[in-house]
């Protein structure tokens, strides 16, 4: 796999069709795209490497971000929050900084 420069690409491919699908791409990767449009886009992608790679890397980008470790809330931050709110933390459990959701 190599880096394809856009200049090179411009000469070899009619962009107007890709452009038409642009607004559908994120619905497509979310699985929210209208089925007819979805088939149309997939037909287009079968012939268009540009859109295929854009969709693959778009999907990958989202999945990488979803795997980013969630930043922890430091205990000191939590303690200061309780102080500012004038609450006593001990009214509830001792579960430390975890996310209950």
């Amino acid at each position, binding site marked *: 796999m190599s880096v394809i420069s856009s200049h090179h690409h411009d000469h070899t491919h009619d962009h107007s069709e890709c452009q038409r699908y*642009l607004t559908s791409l994120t619905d497509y990767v979310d699985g929210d795209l209208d089925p007819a449009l979805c088939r149309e886009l997939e037909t287009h992608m079968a012939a268009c490497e540009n859109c295929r790679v*854009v969709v693959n*890397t778009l999907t990958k980008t989202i999945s990488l971000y*979803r795997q*980013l470790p969630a*930043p922890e809330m430091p205990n000191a931050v939590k303690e200061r929050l309780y102080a500012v709110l004038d609450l006593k933390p001990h*009214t509830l459990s001792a579960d430390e900084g975890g996310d*209950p959701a």
Partner: protein
Amino acid sequence: MPIQANDMDLVARLQAGDEAAYAQLVEENAARVYRLALRMMGNEADAEDVLQETFLSAFKAIDHFEARSSVSTWLYRIASNAALMRLRRKEPEQVSVDEPIERDDGEMLPRQLFDFCCLPEDDLLREEAREEMAHAIDDLPPTLRSVFVLRDIEGLSTEETANALDLSVPAVKSRLMRARLKLRERLSAYFAQGPVIVESRNRGEA
């Protein structure tokens, strides 16, 4: 997410001034609000301010809570507003209130760039790459950042995101698309340039 029965119960107790209910609200939501604040603000000091401001506002506003969203979406809404307001003060030119954003992007036809999708996960998620991902979020305009963080990182639905940010569903989708495409482009450029050699920077644990 429509409001749930246990939310109703919690809200009723909050409105009745039950202190344990206040502690419960904080306990169940603080970590989440902090995460959002940190992603939005990009630094811990500002994130902590936003966190405190969010719960102070929420406590004050609890009598006006309307059951059109869940409690957590409501808190996300207060937190996003607080974050955006603070960003607007810090960098007014970055956050215009009525950014003409809903136009559909002639200029942004995505280029294919580097197909990084099949690199090994270990390389894609190595520490330096994770830092790059975090910086890429910081560099998004705040109005796109808030949509991306709520929808794709916190995992809210499109409707919940719209509700939390006071946007229409199409506006959320349009901003989400722009955010995702920008991040994709940034990661493509990053992974294309990188010799993806983990062992060369063999975690000397700083």
